[in-house]
């Protein structure tokens, strides 16, 4: 039954669930996704609810899974997404899952720790290896240049000794020995390469140039075990004298985070050490490889199941969240839930509940109990992938009030049509259609490829809207005879040039007169004659045509909206609104604006160029707009002397009558409803007061129980404040009366955008593509090749995308403001069922961000 035109009928139900069966039942309902639960303990803190512990455990499991996922992504192991949807596991399985995740997490953490320790060890050994290798070079140099340095030191020492001869020769020898020993002191280490210059300067300043630094770069980058980055390092060796300098140098090294390594002085020791380091590095490598293998094996095993686990854990969490919304019975034996349910699906819900009970092995069946309520139920419109996009357009303005007329079914046709009136071009329509058709045909693979590209998601979500818009644009393009601003001469033009050669040669401008043989008196079979594309007065002609077209479409569109309001009033049994709102609204619109549209058609029918009668020749055709303005202002029309003032007999009288009728509608709309409502209330009040002595409120208030409070409140709401009623009605009336004028004018945007689109595409053709067609040699082909690419990119970017977007927005406005304001309140709230599908989708998109 008419669920296409109205939202689904909803009912509030009470659900009694046995404690043991509650979990399984809710899980079944989650799979079904047709029930919206209400929070029965809104004043209870989130931490004080019954199943807080379970929710917390689920959160912990989710955290572990996220950790696993992160590690899997780090190792670039493909995660198997079979798209299967496992059922929510039993509560007892939760412990197994927890244990599995715990084990996996611990294992992984341990492996990671070990790997890090091993890597640190490995780094140290590699650095040591490099130190040994590089310092070898320094020492070799030193030994090679032994003569020079040695002789220099000797020279210095002997200088010293010469000066110290007075002190005695015995001391001298000792001094030389000591000096040589001091000379040989050094430390070696590794430092980050970018710190070298600062390090060097610091050393120089702190030690006053008394140290000697040598450094060499390690060519290969080393891996930093804590961050995993590849860093470049350098080996350095510092020679110095004395213990004081040594402590100072060591402190500086510490400050610069340089690692110092012991380096034996003797070449033989160094060689031995290098050998030892090499073997240890090799051992470490094998151990590291094994650790990596182990980690990989663990992760691959986890990657197979991780999506599955995520689904399971999220389902469990959602179930416990829902159970937290329930009320606990006094006996603790059963849980009480309240939920909104579509009336048509009650059977299915009961079936699901029965399944849940069977699964849990409980013997007591759950009870689903319909309740009466005065609250407004949520609005639930069943959609499929085709209507979904259109419903979203309507809901973006406001979710329909409960059981209100849903504009979506009409929008499916009117939206693409009004869009196409503005976007009429066969070529651009074809581009749009082919893009949308590709999306529709490739629907499944494209939908599976989830991306967080917002623009793409918008296009893909509206693929059916775009497809219809494309089809309709192709149709209107055919009617406008516009393909990339060129016309198609499909049926040969019905105009012909009958001038002789001399006339053509002598005149710059020539007219084709429709009253002569130039026009063969039958219209072009479909749309506009292609000859207009070449005419000088093309814009003038098209403007007249498109303006009349848009006003005609607009008035029909608004009239349709007003008629839909009748369906609403009838459905809600609002007789008063039919007589006091719908009828005057209809009269106002029909008598003024539909009459104007009829005048246009009359003008088209009456006046004909091929007639002998002057009165029905184009010369006498009146301007409809002037006629309409004169009609509203009660001014007599004027006309040239040979013509009739009116198009038909009695026009003046009829017009006066229509305007007066329309004007009477204004106070009718403004006053009738509030007066009748207030009078009705007064009568009711008199009746009540004659029956009850104590007045309405006092009598009932005394004895009410909490259960019956709601109906009394509902009754109270119907009592109106008279001023408020008048103001409300006044606003409505003003909005409608002024709106009818401004909305009719607003539909002229159909003409304006259509004109702009046609002109823009013509300019683009003339300014870009036409430049490639002006060559009189073969070069033209090559130039055309380049220019066409430019032209096509500009066509898609400016005309299809930008113009398309602007036409889309204007169409949206015409629907939201001009059409829906006539009947649509949009004061409802959407139905948000408890559904695993929605929850999982949300979680998946949240984790991708």
């Amino acid at each position, binding site marked *: 039954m008419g669920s296409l035109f109205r939202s689904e009928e909803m009912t509030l139900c009470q659900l009694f669930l046995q404690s043991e069966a509650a979990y399984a039942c809710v899980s079944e309902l989650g799979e079904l996704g047709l029930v919206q639960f209400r929070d029965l303990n809104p004043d209870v803190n989130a931490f004080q609810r019954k199943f807080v512990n379970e929710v917390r455990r689920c959160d912990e499991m989710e955290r572990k899974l996220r950790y696993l996922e992160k590690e899997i992504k780090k190792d670039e192991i493909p995660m198997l997404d079979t798209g299967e949807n496992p059922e929510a596991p039993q509560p007892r399985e939760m412990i197994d899952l927890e244990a599995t995740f715990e084990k996996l997490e611990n294992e992984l953490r341990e492996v990671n720790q070990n790997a890090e320790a091993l890597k640190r060890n490995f780094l140290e050994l590699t650095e040591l290896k490099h130190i040994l290798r590089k310092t070898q070079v320094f020492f070799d140099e030193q030994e090679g240049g032994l003569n020079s340095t040695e002789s220099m030191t000797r020279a210095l020492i002997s200088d010293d000794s010469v000066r110290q001869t007075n002190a005695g020769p015995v001391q001298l020898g000792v001094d030389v020995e000591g000096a040589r020993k001091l000379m040989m002191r050094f430390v070696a280490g590794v430092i980050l390469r970018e710190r070298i210059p600062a390090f060097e300067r610091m050393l120089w300043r702190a030690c006053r140039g008394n140290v000697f630094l040598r450094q060499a770069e390690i060519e290969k980058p080393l891996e930093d075990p804590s961050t995993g980055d590849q860093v470049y390092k350098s080996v350095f060796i510092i020679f110095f004298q004395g213990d004081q300098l040594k402590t100072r140098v060591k402190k500086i090294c510490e400050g610069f985070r340089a690692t110092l390594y012991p380096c034996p002085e003797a070449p033989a020791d160094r060689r031995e050490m290098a050998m030892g380091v090499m073997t240890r590095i090799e051992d470490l490598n094998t151990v590291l490889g094994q650790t990596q293998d182990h980690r990989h094996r663990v992760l691959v095993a986890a990657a197979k199941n991780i999506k599955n686990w995520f689904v399971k854990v999220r389902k469990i969490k959602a179930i416990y969240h829902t159970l937290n919304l329930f009320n606990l019975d006094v006996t603790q034996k059963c849980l009480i839930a309240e939920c909104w349910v579509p009336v048509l699906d009650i059977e299915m819900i009961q079936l699901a509940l029965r399944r849940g009970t069977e699964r849990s092995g409980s013997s007591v069946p759950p009870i689903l109990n319909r309740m009466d309520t005065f609250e407004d139920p949520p609005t639930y419109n069943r959609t499929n992938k085709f209507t979904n996009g259109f419903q979203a357009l309507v809901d973006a303005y406001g979710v329909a009030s409960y059981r209100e007329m849903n504009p979506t079914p009409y929008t499916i046709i009117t939206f693409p049509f009004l869009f196409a009136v503005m976007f009429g071009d066969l070529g651009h329509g074809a581009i749009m259609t082919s893009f949308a058709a590709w999306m529709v045909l490739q629907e499944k693979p494209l939908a599976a490829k989830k991306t967080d590209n917002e623009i793409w998601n918008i296009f893909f979500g509206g693929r059916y809207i775009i497809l219809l818009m494309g089809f309709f644009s192709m149709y209107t393009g055919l009617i406008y005879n516009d393909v990339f601003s060129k016309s198609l001469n499909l049926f040969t033009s019905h105009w012909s040039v009958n001038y002789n050669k001399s006339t053509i040669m002598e005149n710059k401008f020539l007219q084709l007169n429709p009253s002569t043989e130039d026009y063969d008196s039958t219209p072009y079979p479909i749309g506009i004659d292609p000859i207009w594309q070449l005419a000088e007065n093309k814009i003038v002609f098209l403007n007249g045509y498109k303006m009349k077209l848009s006003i005609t479409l607009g008035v029909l569109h608004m009239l349709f909206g007003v008629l839909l309001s009748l369906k609403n009033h009838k459905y809600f049994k609002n007789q008063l609104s039919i007589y006091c709102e719908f009828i005057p609204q209809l009269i106002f619109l029909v008598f003024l604006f539909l009459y104007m549209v009829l005048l246009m058609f009359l003008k088209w029918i009456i006046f004909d160029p091929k007639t002998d009668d002057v009165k029905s020749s184009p010369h006498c055709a009146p301007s409809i707009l002037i006629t309409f303005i004169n009609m509203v202002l009660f001014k007599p029309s004027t006309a040239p002397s040979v013509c009739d003032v009116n198009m038909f007999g009695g026009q003046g009288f009829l017009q006066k009558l229509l305007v007066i009728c329309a004007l009477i509608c204004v106070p009718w709309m403004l006053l009738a409803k509030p007066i009748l409502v207030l009078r009705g209330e007064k009568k009711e009040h008199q009746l009540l007061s004659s029956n009850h002595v104590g007045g309405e409120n006092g009598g009932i208030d005394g004895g009410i129980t909490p259960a019956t409070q709601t109906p009394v409140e509902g009754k109270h709401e119907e009592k109106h404040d008279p001023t408020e009623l008048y103001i409300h009605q006044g606003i409505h009336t003003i909005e409608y009366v002024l709106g009818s004028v401004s909305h009719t004018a607003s539909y002229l945007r159909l003409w304006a955008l259509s004109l702009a689109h046609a002109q823009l595409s013509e300019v683009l053709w003339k300014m870009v593509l036409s430049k490639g067609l002006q*060559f009189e040699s073969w070069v033209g082909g090559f130039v055309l*090749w380049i220019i066409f690419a430019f032209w096509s990119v500009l066509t898609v970017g400016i005309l299809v995308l930008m113009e398309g977007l602007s036409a889309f927005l204007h169409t949206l406005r015409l629907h939201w403001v001009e059409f829906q304001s006539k009947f649509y309140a949009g004061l409802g709230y959407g139905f948000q069922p408890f559904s695993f599908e929605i929850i999982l989708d949300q979680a998946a998109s949240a984790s991708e961000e």
Partner: protein
Amino acid sequence: MKILGPRLSLCGLIISVWGIIQLGSMGLFYYMNSVALLEDLPLEEEYTDPKKFYADAENGYSMNAYNCWIAACLYIFTFLFCSHQFYMNNRTSV
């Protein structure tokens, strides 16, 4: 050999398909002396001799027809090149 990126090659592919269709048919329309395309011909501002006008127009029509077809042929090569690039890109990404 990979020269174009995956997006550029796809873009080239689409433009060349469009170019082949549109330029091919435009060539045909020029060949048939379509009046709608008269405005784009390389003609002078004013003619005193109708014969010269006809000759120029016909010459322009046939010239433009051939030029359109040449461009369409170039787009066939573009199409082949881009599809090769597209194929290469797809193969390396898998």
